[in-house]
């Protein structure tokens, strides 16, 4: 099914001759410790975020099945976290509980609309909802902060996938418009996720030549054709712009920018650093059934996205990846037989379903996260594996408000699932000195999710800060 990498003598020769196609990272190319290249440059550092679009509890429940009871290492695996054990990644993940994002005007807080604004506050660390228009992020998202700080030289600066095929609502990745300056007026726009694994595959692997192999003449011709047509499109867009009014010119300007981004990617050569596991995953030509059908095959869709995420890292096509479960407020929602095909993950499961149904949903999302981590772990790199060089976050949309204090229980006058009190994140990987494998309880310290993001930035060597949030969680490194 897949084209596995094998290193031929010819390939080694080609590599030695400096061909544009990258080569797998061999031990002989590393320093004595196997933790950096022989020339002293470090191995790639990677950022991965999985977004679980649910809370810990339903509207009618305050009892959840995700957060471990005991702190420290060796905690008892809970039913929802069981996939971590099933996939063999418990020692590679730290569970962080007791986080808090306030629904009041404060650094990194959200206004009273939980689903619309809380994800903005979490993902940017900038208070959301006090500046018009409210339904818009007010800062860079974490993935884009990493991109800006590290400026990776990969073919794709960042990737953003979403398991649920429904678009709209609140996304997880935001970029600044208006010329990308920090001068007002600053407007942040949501970046649209790729919801089709097939299209995601084409983006990554059309024209892909397995590292070290002969250049396929057909692939070479395909690439020439693509470059040529994009170049022509640029000229046409520029010509048409001259005839338009201001608003339409802006539209075509954005279109032109996107074309240039794509063109630049095609002009880039294959990365110089690839793991031996890099291969074309050969995804099918059509997507598995999504929610536009009567019986969506969410498992099959997720499996393909896991393949893509794995290979994007293994082939060093990107070092910054966000995999969202669903955008929030997606209306009819993300049906899945696992949660009784209820029409809306949001409306039906979180608000009207049973805690058992929500637990089933959360467990499924944890499993997708665990599958990604297991793949990273199984991908050798240097003397370790890709997970060793990755910070892999698991972020949830909501926690469990445990009080009727409006400043802790979220909107809706105490609906516990509309709260970011007692929130849980997970952080996998060992990049930059992260020490995983524990349950870290932060209850009572009112630490914002942004402190975990700041810790990730520190681990990645990214000189940036999560919006208004200062400080890190030092225990993640010790």
């Amino acid at each position, binding site marked *: 099914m897949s084209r596995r990498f094998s290193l031929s003598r010819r390939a080694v020769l080609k590599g030695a001759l400096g061909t544009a196609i990258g080569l797998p990272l061999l031990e002989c190319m590393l320093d004595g410790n196997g933790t950096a290249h022989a020339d002293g440059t470090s191995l790639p550092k990677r950022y991965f975020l999985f977004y679980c679009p649910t809370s810990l509890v339903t*509207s009618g429940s305050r009892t959840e099945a995700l957060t471990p009871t005991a702190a420290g290492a060796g905690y008892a695996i809970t039913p929802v976290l069981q996939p971590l054990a099933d996939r063999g990644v418990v020692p590679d993940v730290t569970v962080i509980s007791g986080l808090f994002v306030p629904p009041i005007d404060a650094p990194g807080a959200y*206004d*009273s*609309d939980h689903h619309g604004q809380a994800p903005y506050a979490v993902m940017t660390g900038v208070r959301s909802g006090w500046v018009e*228009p409210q339904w818009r992020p007010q800062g860079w998202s974490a993935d884009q902060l990493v991109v800006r700080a590290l400026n990776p030289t990969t073919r794709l600066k960042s990737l953003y996938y979403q398991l649920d*095929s429904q*678009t*709209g*609502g609140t996304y997880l990745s935001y970029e600044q418009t208006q010329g990308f300056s920090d001068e007002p007026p600053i407007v942040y726009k949501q970046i*649209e996720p790729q*919801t*089709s694994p*097939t*299209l995601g595959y*084409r*983006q990554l692997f059309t024209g892909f030549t397995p590292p070290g192999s002969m250049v396929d003449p057909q692939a070479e*011709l*395909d690439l*020439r*054709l*693509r470059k*040529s*047509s*994009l*170049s*022509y*499109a640029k*000229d*046409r867009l520029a010509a*048409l712009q001259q*005839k*338009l*009014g*201001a*608003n*339409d010119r802006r*539209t*075509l300007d*954005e279109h032109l920018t*996107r*074309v240039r981004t*794509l063109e630049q990617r095609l002009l880039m050569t294959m990365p110089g650093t690839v793991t031996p596991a890099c291969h074309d995953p050969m995804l099918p030509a*059509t997507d598995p059934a999504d929610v536009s059908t*009567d019986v969506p095959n969410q498992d099959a869709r997720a499996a393909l996205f896991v393949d893509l995420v794995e290979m994007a890292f293994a082939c060093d096509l990107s070092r910054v990846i966000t995999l969202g479960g669903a955008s929030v*407020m997606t*209306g*009819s929602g993300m049906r899945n037989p696992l949660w*009784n*095909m*209820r*029409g809306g993950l*949001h*409306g*039906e499961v*979180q*608000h*009207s379903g049973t805690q058992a149904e929500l637990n089933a949903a959360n467990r499924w999302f944890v499993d997708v996260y665990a599958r990604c981590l297991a793949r990273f772990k199984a991908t050798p790199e240097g003397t370790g594996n890709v997970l060793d060089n990755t910070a892999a976050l698991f972020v949830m949309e909501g926690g469990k408000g445990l009080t009727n204090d409006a400043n802790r229980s979220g*909107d809706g*006058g105490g*609906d516990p699932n509309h709260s970011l009190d007692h929130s849980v994140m997970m952080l996998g990987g060992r990049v930059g000195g992260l020490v995983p494998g524990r349950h870290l309880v932060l209850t009572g310290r009112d630490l914002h999710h942004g402190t975990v993001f700041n810790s990730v930035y520190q681990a990645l060597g990214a000189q940036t800060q999560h919006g208004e949030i200062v400080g890190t969680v030092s225990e993640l490194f010790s």
Partner: protein
Amino acid sequence: MRSVVAAALSLGCFACVGTLEGPRAEGPVPGAPSTVEAPTTAIPRASRRELERTVNSVFGLQGAALRNLPADAPSSVSPVTLAEEEVFDTLASTKEPTQVFVEGLESLAFEVARDWSANRAAVDSLAGCAPANGTTTDSACLGRLVEALAVRLWRRPATAAERDEVLAAAQPFAADGHYVSVRAVTASMLLAPEFVYRSELGATVAPGLVRLDNFELLTRLSAFLWGDAPTPDMLAALGPVELDDAALTSLVDAMLSDPRAQTQMRSFHQLWLRYPNLLIADAALATDMRAETDALVSRALTPGTSWQTLFTATQTFVTPALAAHYVLPSPGATAGWIDVAPPRAGVLTHGSFLSLSSTRITDTLPSRRGAMIARRALCQVVLPPPKDVNIDNGVPVPPGACKAESYAAHRARGSACAGCHATIDGVGFGFEPLDGQGRVRSSDEGNAACTLDGKGTAMGQPFTGAREFVTAQVDTITRCAVSNVLRFAYRDRFVPEDRVAQFHGAFRASNHDFAALMRAVALDPRFRLRVSDEGQP
């Protein structure tokens, strides 16, 4: 101009609902009955559905656009209400060229060019020539192909300079053979903005007003009436002189007699009522329900049949399984039409439609359903709830209590929600005798002591049951449909009130012949015009 609409709506905040038929200032426009409106784009982008039809028509390839392009936004935040509202896939303001879209378009162009160029007979047929020397690139023949593709993909003839530019872009592939060059020109022309963006530049006839040229008008017409590009024959028949009324009428009638018009009219109803997105977990039942509503839409579009039957029908099309689900008489061994009794009447009582407001498998949230019907069938703008209100659970109903009493108590408390509930609950409770899967019931789910009488109010009028609602409101529903047809046609969110009134009257006069409504909109002199902001900084 939007602010006028906003102001009108803001006045309606206290009453929960407003209307999006916004008042717009009227002013003189030379050459046509005039309405001064907000500027609209000169480059409306085709929807994924429209691009799929065009790729299929031109290249005979199915699914390419659906596979490669992201779905059009089913909803967007209204600049007036700041709430997420359902929109047509044609709405121009939702068509931002995101990275996902642009990359999907490139993938579409690559795939179509590759697959179509492999069908040499089809290529030669469209070009009207074959390469003179086997597969060696024949630039003259390639030029003819570019001209033929321009008419089909750009919906107008290419100028000589444009043809030469395409050929120049393909020149580096000349040595690779004729059909590789075909790939190059096809991909380039699909990636050109002229393919995905319709040109409505027109010619300025008054400050801020342009009149579409013949090609632009024909393209607008075919997008509205077919959801597809015009045929080459129609384009070829156009001359430089502006189409007169007789020629335009002839064109529109020819389009309406084409099967594509029927497909488009069905698409409109699917996009408006959203019933294909029904929330029914049982796949077989969902298929039957979709077929039930499809059949009624087709019946309502049948010439000589009043379109209002879509809402007033006392017959429905069911399979034996669906009849059993509804507890109705079986149509026999196969699907067929059967009579139905009140409260059933038309599409609003179909399981497909009723399921759309569900947040639970069977039980209903009357406010949610009432808001859905108010929005979709009555064209009321239900303003968003206060931000500290979680609407997903509905009004809490204590164990043993009746839903109606709990909602009444909630309204009586006189909170900020009361005004809105008074409006939408009235509609929702009138439909309570129908559950979330279209089955008739006589009491609250799980509480037989709470009988359902179907008493409700809509637009200030009391009614009992869905059939009475439809009977009383069918004219409002019809006006709402007209309003939506105009939004669909003009790819805009707002439509002038006077225009809705005009076409509502014409629709009534035609005995509610839906094709006649489409025809009237298409032939309206204002359909040739566009308000522009060109020249503004």
